[in-house]
């Protein structure tokens, strides 16, 4: 206990260790948070779902917080469902003949300096033979009313503002000029070129009539703004929050497991080789030399292309290919020295078995050297996993940081100016690398006596 305390006190003497440790702890916290907040199955559903999961999100927009750094504020996205007595109010009046008049109203403030991408109204109508009829109007802050449309609503009906030709004409009449996107016109000051947003409180009014006794109508009003969520969205309207959060546990798990598996296994194998010697040692050394000349990344790409891209297969192959590397040679050199110590001979004399000597006498001597090496090795494997994903060989199921960069690259994010799409995962990857590297270097200074006092 006291030694543990001393170790921590020693670590605390290095600011880089504290800083690196904080980054690593934050990443671990992020990973745990991600796994609790969005369970694995849910994350996969949200990531691989489809239009029905992503319909509320705009396409390729940066995160909400960019507004904090902008002079011209971008409109935020929102989605509201009509509830009786809610913000998007729904009032049902039943007539004597069984028909119903349903009134919807939604008041919202529009204070942005740019226009929403697109707007939708999703209807869900319940009826047997005769579909309900709706008329939609937008009341603007200047008091003008714009008729958006009158239409019959089939069971699942989506009204898209931008695809209504009649709305385009109506808006152009209102604005006295040609505007291609009617959403822009609905929120603009008339007769200005280019369009200036008209700020103030808007009101969406819908009047519906149903013609059957059990008929009912529900509506959801969705506005695709130009910013969305904590991390923005991608080309498929997916919220990048999922892969940004879930990237942490995946990257940490891959990095830590690969680093731990590789260093522990190569240490044990080196110890076995050094202790038993003879043909076994020769075999291990020859395998190492052969493995050292094999192209590591090329083999991984081959496996990803022809066999499997599952992260577990890739992890296994990574560990298998990384065991027999230089670490075997350095560990063996240390073990050969330790093996000749008197206390090893003493252990043999009192009848310790070979395995007891390997695990209780040889290996503990190397653990102080192993810990910093292990910590320093983690970012290498995190980057490896990301590199494979960037090369298009990431696990097809999992949302990872590398995958986002790959998507961004495929859909020309930089060319189109979607910097957030590449920078967000890149920054997280760099912080991971920085955290582990700083912690690893300072641990190396603590555990490696040759570096003391430097």
């Amino acid at each position, binding site marked *: 206990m006291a030694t543990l305390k001393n170790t921590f006190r020693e670590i605390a003497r290095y600011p880089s260790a504290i800083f690196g440790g904080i980054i690593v702890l934050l990443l671990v916290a992020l990973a745990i948070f991600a796994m609790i907040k969005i369970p694995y199955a849910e994350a996969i559903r949200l990531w691989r779902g489809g239009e029905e999961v992503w319909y509320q999100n705009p396409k390729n927009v940066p995160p909400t917080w960019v507004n904090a750094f902008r002079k011209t504020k971008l409109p935020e996205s929102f989605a509201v469902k009509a509830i009786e007595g809610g913000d998007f109010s729904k009032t049902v009046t039943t007539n004597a003949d069984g028909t119903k008049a349903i009134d919807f109203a939604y008041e919202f403030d529009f204070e942005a300096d740019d226009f929403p991408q697109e707007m939708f109204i999703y209807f869900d109508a319940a009826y047997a033979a005769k579909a309900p009829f709706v008329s939609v109007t937008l009341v603007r802050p200047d008091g003008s009313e714009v008729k958006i449309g009158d239409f019959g609503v089939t069971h699942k009906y989506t009204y898209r503002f931008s695809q209504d030709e009649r709305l385009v004409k109506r808006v152009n009449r209102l604005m006295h000029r040609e505007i291609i996107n009617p959403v822009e016109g609905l929120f603009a000051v008339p007769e200005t070129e280019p369009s200036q947003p008209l700020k103030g409180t808007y009101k969406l009014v819908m009047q519906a009539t149903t013609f059957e006794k059990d008929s009912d109508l529900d509506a959801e009003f969705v506005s695709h703004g130009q910013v969305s969520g904590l991390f923005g969205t991608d080309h498929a309207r997916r919220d990048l929050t999922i892969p940004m959060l879930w990237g942490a546990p995946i990257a940490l798990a891959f990095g830590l497991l690969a680093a731990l598996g590789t260093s522990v296994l190569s240490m044990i194998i080196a110890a076995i080789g050094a202790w038993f*010697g003879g043909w076994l040692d020769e075999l291990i050394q020859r395998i190492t030399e052969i493995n050292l000349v094999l192209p590591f990344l090329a083999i991984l790409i081959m496996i990803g292309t022809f066999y499997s891209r599952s992260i577990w297969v890739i992890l296994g192959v990574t560990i298998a290919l990384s065991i027999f590397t230089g670490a075997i040679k350095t560990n063996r050199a240390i073990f050969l020295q330790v093996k000749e*110590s*008197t*206390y090893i*001979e*003493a*252990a*043999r*004399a*009192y*009848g*310790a*078995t070979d395995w*007891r000597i390997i695990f*209780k*006498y040889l290996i*503990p*001597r190397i653990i102080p050297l192993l810990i910093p090496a292990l910590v320093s090795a983690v970012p290498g494997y995190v980057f490896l996993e990301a590199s494979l994903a960037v090369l298009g060989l990431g696990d097809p199921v999992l949302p990872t940081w590398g995958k986002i960069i790959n998507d961004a690259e495929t859909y020309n994010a930089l060319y189109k100016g979607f910097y957030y799409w590449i920078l967000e995962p890149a920054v997280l990857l760099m912080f991971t690398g920085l955290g582990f590297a700083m912690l690893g270097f300072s641990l190396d200074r603590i555990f490696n006596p040759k570096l003391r006092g430097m």
Partner: protein
Amino acid sequence: MANDKQFLLDIQELKLHFRTTKGVVQAVDGVNFQLKPNQAVVVVGESGCGKTSLAKAILRLLPRNVQHYGGKVYLNDLETMGLTDEEYRKQVRWIKMSLVPQAAMNSLNPVLRVGDQVAEPMMIHYGVKKDEAMQQAIKMFQHVGVPVDFINRYAFELSGGMRQRVAIAMSLVTAPALVMLDEPTSALDVLTQANIFNLLKRIKSEMATSFVLITHDIATSSELADRVAVMYAGQIVEVADAFTFFKQPRHPYSAKLMASVPKLRGNDEPDFITGQPPSLINPPTGCRFAARCPKRFGKCSEEPPTVTIGEDKVKCWLHV
């Protein structure tokens, strides 16, 4: 030659040859000696005469480059040469015979607490639970005079003398009948040496343990010795009762060796032996000491016989 039951340890024609780049080193070349229960035999000789190799050969701690390993080692009536390595490990090491290695100060595992390490042989050989083994270790610590609260320390936190005591505690924890000590006091100051020898004497009387003490320090070892075996160039040249040996060594080499020890009283200058010990790669034929022997005569070019005088033995033509 059958083994005589009265001996605890009976070594017959024990040989241990090493293969090196220069040739075969005959480090132990036909050694015979016997040890009765509760006796201490001191094996003395110059550096490089094969003392440590003899200890290794008796305990079968062989390095990789062994060229020849043969002879017979009886422990009571168990012939150990016939055992496989695994049987040997289970039946002999630390059960019948234990070792305090040379430079015992470095023979403790630096990453284990000394208490754990003393308890290790108990756990390995008798499969006892750790806390039980620790109880035994505590008992041994008390026995060899190490404060009990040292059990949680690491070897580097102990002084040389304490480490030596811990090593001795470890050799005694399974209560073997025979303990081999390979230069147990070579790196200690005289006061600590005296303490360690007093401790060994006490153990010998209390636990009825037998010792094979390998040393080049004749003066100190005389404290403990019941019998003395003198080793020269891989062979035992004289085995004698300690009292007789210190009064009147029979072999000329023993005599020279005794004369080289400075004496507290008297005016005798310490003597020395001219020349170098022979190379064990290509030992001379006949008596191996002949080239340096002040009393050599014609017959010395032939292999000397082992002459038995009472219980003592000497390998010299002078006593034929």
